[in-house]
């Protein structure tokens, strides 16, 4: 029997039973997710073992076993895309953690007007990543762009192009992502800082622990679970990154910023190699899901300490 609270069943004269209400309320969501998320996922898994092409519906579909996976994992290009993704995820998270935690510590000094400034700083992360990519492409323009102009204002960098240069392009997307998502890490770190009770610092003051020592043995360990949560969310999102980078560099120059999702889209919707791209999708999903789960286990351990 499903009741509001075990041991305290409420007697009622009319209406549906609690069990019925529960299922009526929950099942639409579950059904929707099964139909438009799980069913397509299973279909993707099936397609990954075939040579299907979505633009040729009449063509005979052949079961090719693990061929798609073999081709993928044996392809140097694919490792290149994964490397580009790792570079992007790793560095963008590195800078966001550094800046986000720093900003949170500063804002936590609770100077006058910190609330208004916080809202202002948060703006970039609420914007549409695709549209952000579009306008950063304008900001990065070698001639008319404000970015190059400002850089040259401070250092004599001469003429350069952020998104057209093989060496600079991977950093151009890291920079935009950092601009956009540093506030995200900041906001979560700020919550962590505010969760530290004052008496811990009071005790440290009594013990004459230096500020530096207080930071390393109180602040950082207490914020760590929050920081790790922020990193988890950022890592998942950036591993899937598509929209901002497509609009900013569309994977170029060459394929130096061709992240996994961008290549996936190219294979699936431009080359129409549905079977092959499905295999890639499965590999990516398994990676996110597996790594995410391991990380959460680790996070829970840190939390329990």
């Amino acid at each position: 029997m499903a009741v509001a609270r075990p041991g305290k069943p409420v007697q009622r004269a009319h209406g549906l039973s609690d069990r019925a209400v529960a299922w009526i309320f929950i099942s639409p969501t579950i059904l929707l997710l099964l139909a438009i998320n799980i069913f397509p996922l299973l279909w993707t898994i099936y397609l990954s073992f075939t040579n299907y092409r979505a633009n040729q519906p009449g063509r005979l579909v052949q079961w090719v076993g693990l061929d798609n996976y073999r081709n993928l994992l044996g392809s140097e290009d694919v490792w290149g895309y994964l490397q580009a993704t790792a570079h992007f995820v790793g560095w963008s998270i590195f800078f966001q953690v550094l800046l986000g935690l720093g900003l949170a510590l500063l804002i936590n000094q609770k100077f006058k007007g910190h609330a208004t400034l916080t809202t202002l700083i948060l703006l970039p992360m609420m914007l549409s990543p695709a549209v952000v990519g579009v306008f950063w492409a304008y900001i990065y323009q070698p001639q008319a762009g404000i970015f190059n102009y400002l850089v040259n204002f401070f250092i004599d960098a001469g003429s350069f192009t952020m998104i057209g240069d093989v060496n600079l392009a991977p950093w151009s997307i890291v920079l935009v992502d950092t601009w956009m998502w540093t506030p995200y890490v900041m906001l979560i770190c700020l919550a962590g800082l505010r969760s530290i009770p004052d008496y811990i610092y009071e005790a440290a003051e009594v013990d004459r622990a230096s500020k530096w020592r207080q930071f390393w043995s109180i602040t950082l360990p207490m914020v760590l679970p929050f920081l790790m949560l922020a990193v988890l969310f950022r890592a998942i999102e950036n591993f899937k990154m598509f929209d901002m980078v497509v609009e900013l560099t569309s994977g170029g120059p060459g394929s130096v910023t061709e992240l996994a999702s961008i290549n996936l889209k190219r294979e699936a919707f431009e080359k129409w190699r549905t079977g092959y791209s499905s295999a890639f999708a499965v590999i990516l999903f398994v990676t996110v899901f597996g790594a995410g789960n391991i990380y959460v286990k680790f996070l829970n351990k840190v939390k329990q300490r």
Partner: protein
Amino acid sequence: MSAASTRSVLEPSPWGQRFAALLVILYALITMIPLVWIGLTGLKTPPDAIAYPPKVVFDPSLEGYVNLFTARSRQTPEYMASLPPPTSWYDELVRKRNMVITGPSRFAERYMNSIIIGFGSTFLAVFLGTIAAYGFSRFKVPLKDDLLFFILSTRMMPPIAVAVPIFLMYRALGLSDTHLGMIILYTMVNVSLAVWLLKGFIDEIPMEYEEAALVDGYSRMQAFWKVVLPQAKTGIAATAIFCLIFAWNEYAFALLLTSGNAQTAPPFIPIIIGEGGLDWPAVAAGTTLFLLPIVFFTVLLRQHLLRGITFGAVRK
């Protein structure tokens, strides 16, 4: 950072505070440059927008906005001379470039699509999310934690990973490039967020209210409708804004599954072409109009942002 690590329970020193304020203001200023720049570019003429060095001071013009909303064609000087005098300020503006307005552009249509699909999917996701969250919050459901985790995990999937089957499914069902198809799709993506956020909000409503109502002879449905919903108002509103922002900002599905009819603004803004490449003032004008509602909602939502971005995991 060195000043920051001096955090203490004792009132932070005034100089420390001032130093922190200075750094944060500096960061805020730098982070605002791109946004301000886009806002300004929307008010430039096309030559000003690609001038070198970039123009900070310029004569504001509404050409970008006019170009955003109209389709134009270039004409010969003879033809231009033969026209009757312009009937409106925007006619005049366009004619200065030897062009005439041939009709409205598709921007208003795309913007409208964004509104319809955004609100439609938000309504559905919040509706489904509210009842499911209530179910999870108040009843013993077998495998509750697994179901909740399942709902969350659907959000981890890269959209492109399921885009092909959805594309095939929609093609078979006739939902490709329709408003209904996109509404269902965005509802699916948002419902996980809605369930998780609303479960947090409903968990915070004391159960005693409903129990009192049940004892008074209300049915479960009546108690939900008349007691729980009014108390969950703020949470529902905050969740709705989050869903709306997500649907508003979504790009990958819109790019892959829509083309003419149900396309939203994000895939459209980057392809506003002028003569000789992108029409930057028009793109900037479109961007500004597209981002402004988000700025408004962000300010409205600032108390609940933390919850929203962490799926309710961090509540402050």
